[in-house]
């Protein structure tokens, strides 16, 4: 076991699988000698050679399109999109092609591919180096969408994603890349997709969150326990699609009071699905409005980003409103 940061755990995950499976390749902008702008692929070309980890031209459409082809013909590409904000030129290849290949070919062709990309705010990246676009992809049947929040999960979920037979969008919370370290198991550590993680136990209310919002919500839950003694459960969803809906509904029913938290804008954000799911299947258990704490319905600002992104205080406020609702 090694103490690793989240980005080091991603790096470890990539190298571990590449040692096991010759068909795994890495491609993307600056993933080679530079090791990626966040060093997620540091040393990969050095260890595995240019044939297995290579820089591409500046074309996300090409990265994903070529990745789809590689995957259709026996390879397992890990495509890096430098910032999630730059994934949109590849949107067609992702939603029209990768996500629909198995379906449209009646299972004759499949796309076992991982798209890794850092997402989210908190690094003063402004409009185009801060976005959280998960909802765009979660509305796309055929895709899987995974977001880790800890180093161990980052490695374990990434390895599961690479082994998965379907295309997986693996969004990495860049704000947490170097935020902390933890022990990460050596070797082929796997965390099953479509399973949630209980971060804190509690039955007075439940917070559903993922990615960089997990430590924020953890902090909120801790402060609420200290300040008013309420036990707030925190659930890290980890896999957004396919979601473990049963786990979500069970937690919602047990707690009766729900808050959903994400950085992305509220309107048609991922949180709306969680709310809708509960409102459709467990409304009779609800003792309060289903609250959302989210980024605002504006593009992502720069100087004022810390007022845009939910922080513990905003989560606490929402939880308190929900706890006090009668």
């Amino acid at each position, binding site marked *: 076991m090694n103490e690793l940061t989240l980005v080091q755990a991603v790096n470890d995950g990539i190298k571990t699988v590449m040692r096991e499976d010759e068909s795994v*390749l890495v491609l993307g902008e600056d993933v080679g000698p530079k090791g990626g702008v966040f060093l997620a692929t540091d040393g990969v070309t050095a260890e595995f050679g240019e*044939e297995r980890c290579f820089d*591409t*031209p500046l*074309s996300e*459409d*090409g990265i*994903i*399109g*070529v*990745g*789809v*082809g*590689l*995957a*259709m*013909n*026996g*390879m397992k*590409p890990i495509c890096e999109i430098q910032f999630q904000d730059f994934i949109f*030129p590849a949107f*067609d*290849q992702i939603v*029209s*092609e990768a996500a629909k*290949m*198995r*379906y*449209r*070919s*009646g*299972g*004759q*062709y*499949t796309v076992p591919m991982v798209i890794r990309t850092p997402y989210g705010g908190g690094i003063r990246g402004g409009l185009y180096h801060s976005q959280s676009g998960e909802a765009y992809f979660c509305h796309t*049947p*055929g895709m*899987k969408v995974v977001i880790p929040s800890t180093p161990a999960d980052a490695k374990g979920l990434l390895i599961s994603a690479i082994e*998965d*037979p*379907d295309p997986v969008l693996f969004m990495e919370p860049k704000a947490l890349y170097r935020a902390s370290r933890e022990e990460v198991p050596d070797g082929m550590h796997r965390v099953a997709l*479509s399973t949630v993680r209980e971060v804190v136990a509690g039955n007075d209310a439940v917070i559903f969150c993922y990615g960089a919002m997990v430590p924020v919500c953890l902090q909120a839950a801790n402060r609420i326990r200290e300040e008013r003694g309420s036990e707030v459960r925190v659930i890290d969803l980890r896999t957004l699609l*396919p*979601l473990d*809906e*049963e786990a979500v509904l069970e937690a919602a029913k047990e707690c009766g009071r729900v808050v959903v938290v994400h950085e992305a804008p509220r309107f048609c954000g991922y949180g709306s699905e969680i709310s809708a799911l509960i409102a459709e299947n467990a409304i009779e258990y609800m003792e309060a409005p289903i609250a959302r704490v989210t980024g605002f319905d504006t593009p992502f600002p720069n100087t004022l980003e810390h007022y845009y992104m939910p922080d513990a205080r905003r989560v606490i406020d929402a939880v308190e409103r929900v706890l006090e609702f009668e």
Partner: protein
Amino acid sequence: MTDTLQQILDPTGNKVGKPPRLSKEVLLRMHRAIVQTRHFDDRCMKLQRTGKIGFSIPNLGIEAVSVGAAAALDASKDWIAPSYRDFGMLFFHGVTAESMMDTQFGNVDDNSVGRQMPVHFSYREPIRVLSISSPIGTHLPQAVGISLAAKKRGEDAVSLVSFGDGGTSSLGFHSGMNFAGVLGAPTVFLCQNNQWAISCPYDKQTGSETIAAKGEAYGIPAVRVDGNDVLAVYKVVLNAVKRARAGEGPTLIEAVTMRMGGHSTSDDPSRYVPKEMTEEWKTKDPRKRFEAWLISEGHATSEELEIVDADCAEEMASAAKAAFAKSRPPLDTIFSDVYAEIPKHVADQRDWCIGHYSSRGEGVDEKGEFPL
């Protein structure tokens, strides 16, 4: 090289270049594939006009491009990423008319399980034919990735990707050509320049003199060929395939031809195609030219060719009949193949759907069986 139009047979079937060495058997397979395509088209037009299928794509005029190119590939290892206007590629490699009709009807035997529109074929046998997509150009980088995977494993397989003049404006053309040029991918890019993208004429599609001129932008050698000359198409594609197999990288081929029918069975080209243009191109028909040469070279008699014609007409009629008789795919095929394993929320929707429609007495197929 990019300026001259490679030609072997002139419009009347006279040799103006050196024909490739091809056995009589292969030559007659090529001929048959062209004739099959014509009759398949005719049959589909009738099926569409009578409401039996919703849609098809006429190949009239461009059959020599598809067939000449397909003949240059090795079905045991190569991949085809066709456009939707490449029926001849499938016929040449022995896909059966019935199987293609299954896709036209979207019935239970359709390889896309009735999920795609007509003409969106998908095969792994007798040759790998990429599941055709509607969005134009997406298959170009995919074909590059496919051939690159082969190259990385040390195989000498190549991919051939076919697209229209309109397709050169797509994202996929730019990214596919760019990646292929940089990575030396063994991909053959075949542009069917048939002068039209639905109603958009060539000169509104690109400011470039030729499509072949676009190769240099990516460091990819390019060649122009008379797309109505099946032997010339075969020859230039074969050269490109050989280059690719030898590790010399991609080639761009512009096959100059003309779409002689509508864009699709829904289209009325008289709204935009000048009559004179159609008249002029009628004199360049790829089938007539090839048949004249086959006869003059003694590969076939005109009686033999008439028999092929009648045979293919009959083949298509019975294929349509067989495909029409099949049931539609069962209801649960809406929900399968979304993922390798069906996730719970999709399974729940499947169960609900089946329950719901069976409670309505619907979702029952033509044979009167519950379709599951």
